[in-house]
């Protein structure tokens, strides 16, 4: 069953990456999807990542109560854990829930109301027209959102640490500047690009092959989010193992 779905997913992707009928129309769709995925998810990412950064600071401070460890380490740990793991993966999981379910429902509804059949009758490559702009937009916008999430989480840590008195702002800022390895950002961006692909392509697959009515469209959305989240976590492990 898993291999059947994986095979169908690969065959769908083969159709998705066929040459577009007219790039001008696809570009318009890509910008529309970039707005939907990027701007539409910005406020959610801002709120979640700021709170995660603040909570991380408090928890690191709670676990590192020792006169031997300088408090600047709190900023350092917060920075690295946000860049390497929390920024990309939490954002990926949140976006899977928000963007993934929307993509699955949209394409699934088009399937059950015969709108996809109408595209195919016109001679339009429906997988390409419906899915390619979403994948391109996801691969571009998810890394942008992840970078914003990392920035917000580190800033949230500064605010949370200062408000609670867990760490002095000067110590925290010193910590986030010390021993910075730029490669961690590369790892984060690689993760974000792959998550962007999963967040858009897996729900699109589930929506594209839905059969039935409103109930099945809802079920496809749930399955897409579950499969997508598991895929993100599996890819998280593989990328970390390969790159670090």
């Amino acid at each position, binding site marked *: 069953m898993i291999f059947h779905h994986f095979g169908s997913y690969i065959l769908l992707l083969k159709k998705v990456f066929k040459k577009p*009928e*007219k790039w001008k*129309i696809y570009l318009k769709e890509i910008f529309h999807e970039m707005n939907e995925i990027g701007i539409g998810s910005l406020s959610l990412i801002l709120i979640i990542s700021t709170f995660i950064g603040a909570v991380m600071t408090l928890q690191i401070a709670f676990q590192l109560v020792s006169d031997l460890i300088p408090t600047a380490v709190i900023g350092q740990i917060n920075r690295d854990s946000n860049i390497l793991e929390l920024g990309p993966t939490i954002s990926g999981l949140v976006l899977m829930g928000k963007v993934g379910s929307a993509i699955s429902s949209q394409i699934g509804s088009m399937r059950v*109301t*015969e*709108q996809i*059949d*109408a595209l*195919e*009758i*016109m*001679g*339009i*490559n429906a997988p390409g027209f419906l899915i390619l702009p979403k994948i391109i937009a996801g691969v571009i916008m998810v890394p942008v959102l992840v970078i914003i999430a990392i920035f917000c989480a580190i800033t949230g840590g500064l605010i949370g640490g200062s408000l609670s008195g867990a760490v002095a702002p000067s110590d925290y800022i010193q910590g986030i500047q010390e021993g910075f390895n730029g490669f961690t950002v590369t790892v984060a961006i690689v993760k974000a690009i792959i998550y962007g692909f999963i967040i858009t392509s897996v729900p699109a697959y589930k929506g594209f092959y839905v059969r039935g009515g409103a109930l099945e469209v809802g079920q496809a959305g749930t399955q897409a989010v579950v499969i997508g989240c598991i895929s993100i976590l599996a890819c998280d492990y593989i990328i970390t193992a390969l790159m670090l």
Partner: protein
Amino acid sequence: MIEVQNIYKSFGDNEVLKGIDAIFEPGKVNLIIGGSGSGKSTLLKCIVGLHDPDQGEVFFDQQEFTGMDFEERIPIRRNLGMLFQNSALFDSMTVEQNIIFALSMFTDMSQAEKIERANFCLDRVNLKNVNKLYPSELSGGMKKRVGIARAISMSPKYLFCDEPNSGLDPATSILIDELIQELTEEYQCTTLVVTHDMNSVMGIGDYILFLYNGQKFWEGSNEEMLRSDVQELNDFVFASPLMKAARDSIK
């Protein structure tokens, strides 16, 4: 002209079409009729390529359509318009955008020319001042007419209608039937209509293909149908007392 030869189609163990042969001529309204589950919508979907038949061939003007891949089918599909049962209008687009969509995709017409074409198509189906409305703002009859306007936007050689009258009141159904007949004559296109609306059958059926249990059971014109002695056909067409009375009075 569209020709289907020996079409078989099954879904699992359920054999829906069992060796259908038919020829649908241009300039005529060709109707496919039959009871629920008789395979008429499946036959239509096999003809337009939404389903691949298990066996048999479909020819569009002597070109074998069933053996073609997606790219090879594109030139034929650009000459093909279809009205779906639920209209299948793109709900994220306005009426005007729905109609000019195929023109934008496949022609180099300017925006002004496309809008002019959209207005012509809407005028042709007797709709005015609906260009900027979304499908959700239209009535069932208006959606069908927009669906027809979209189908004729590329001046099709082949026009397909899947139950065009379902969910419509009798007066609107007659308007849609008249429109299909007028467009068939105007474009001299090969029109295929799947229906179980007996008013349509009697009103516009130049050629009627009656399917029964997935098989071609009868074919002919609406006048021949009135004189037919085929029991299954009569049971289906003249099921209501009103239709029986109408037939008896004509006979």
